[in-house]
């Protein structure tokens, strides 16, 4: 089984080791079972991370993470709360070089 994460902002792709891959798939299955489902995404928010799960002999399953805490299953267009998404975002952050942030200076506050 291969699980990879893609940062939607930068396109950076991280392939997870077996231990973390197992955690992600187990967590996805568990949360899908216990959380209430919604159709699509009800805010004007876009995906920040993409999850791809490939298992031998099975079709690739793709998920999108919105704002760190919501997951959307592409094949069913169902979304549910997924707090492990925050951890996944952290893994992506740690695997990429840090971007220095310039001072925040809006011209029209």
């Amino acid at each position, binding site marked *: 089984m291969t699980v990879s994460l893609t940062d939607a902002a*930068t396109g950076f792709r991280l392939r997870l080791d077996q231990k973390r891959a197992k955690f992600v798939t187990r967590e996805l299955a568990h949360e899908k079972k216990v959380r209430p489902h919604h159709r699509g995404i009800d805010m004007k928010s876009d995906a920040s991370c993409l999850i791809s799960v490939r298992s031998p002999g099975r079709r690739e399953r793709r998920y999108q993470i919105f704002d760190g805490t919501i997951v959307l299953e592409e094949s069913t267009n169902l979304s549910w709360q997924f707090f492990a998404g925050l951890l996944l975002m952290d893994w992506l952050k740690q695997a990429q070089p840090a971007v220095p*942030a310039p001072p925040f200076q*809006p011209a*029209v506050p």
Partner: protein
Amino acid sequence: MGFVVDGKLRVFAYPKPSGRRPHTGTIPARDCWPRAQLSASEISTAVAKVKLVSPEYYVIGYDDLNDLISQISVLLNTQTWTSGTPPVVHHHPCLEVLEIDSHANPHRCGGICPGNISHFADSVDSLNDCDELRIYLSGCNTGCRDSSHGACLAELLADLIPSARRQKQYRCTVYGTKGYQTGANATKDSVTTRQSSHSTIIYDYSQDQPVRPGTISTLTDPTYRGFRGANSA
């Protein structure tokens, strides 16, 4: 369909949810197209509101950013306005407002992301822009920062428009939203919240901006913050 006011043209644009044509043109796709698509009902509601509240706006649905730029170019080359007594017909208005309404986050909005933002900025810079160009990125958190990625999309775009070639020739302000958004600038019903009903994550510099009583001007919308780059006048 919109009209030109004093030689200035305003555009409200949204990415079409389906029926995308093959990608062509100089602005690369780079997987920047919104993952979450606006529904047909969301689009029809927004378009109806724009026509009612801000009839001067031209409403454009686009298949990719090249399509957006080419549609704006056609408008700038074909639309006319009349002024004076006796009336004189003028040609070639300038672009004053471009609002992109889409699903978004601090790094993606309406097909723009860090992967193609410089190409998009070059294309906007090459249009006939007014002395004060305003670009609104209407979607969630486009004016807020995600601590892991540095500057947000509005800041990045503001740094690139105008280009060094047209330094200080016009002023460009890129507006991003202050939180999770409903509504838009052209529809004058924009509301932002730090937290949404579906997500508990709070982006840096996000703010609650509740519904305001009465009609407001699109220019003084408190749910947006504006950025200007070093090349802007």
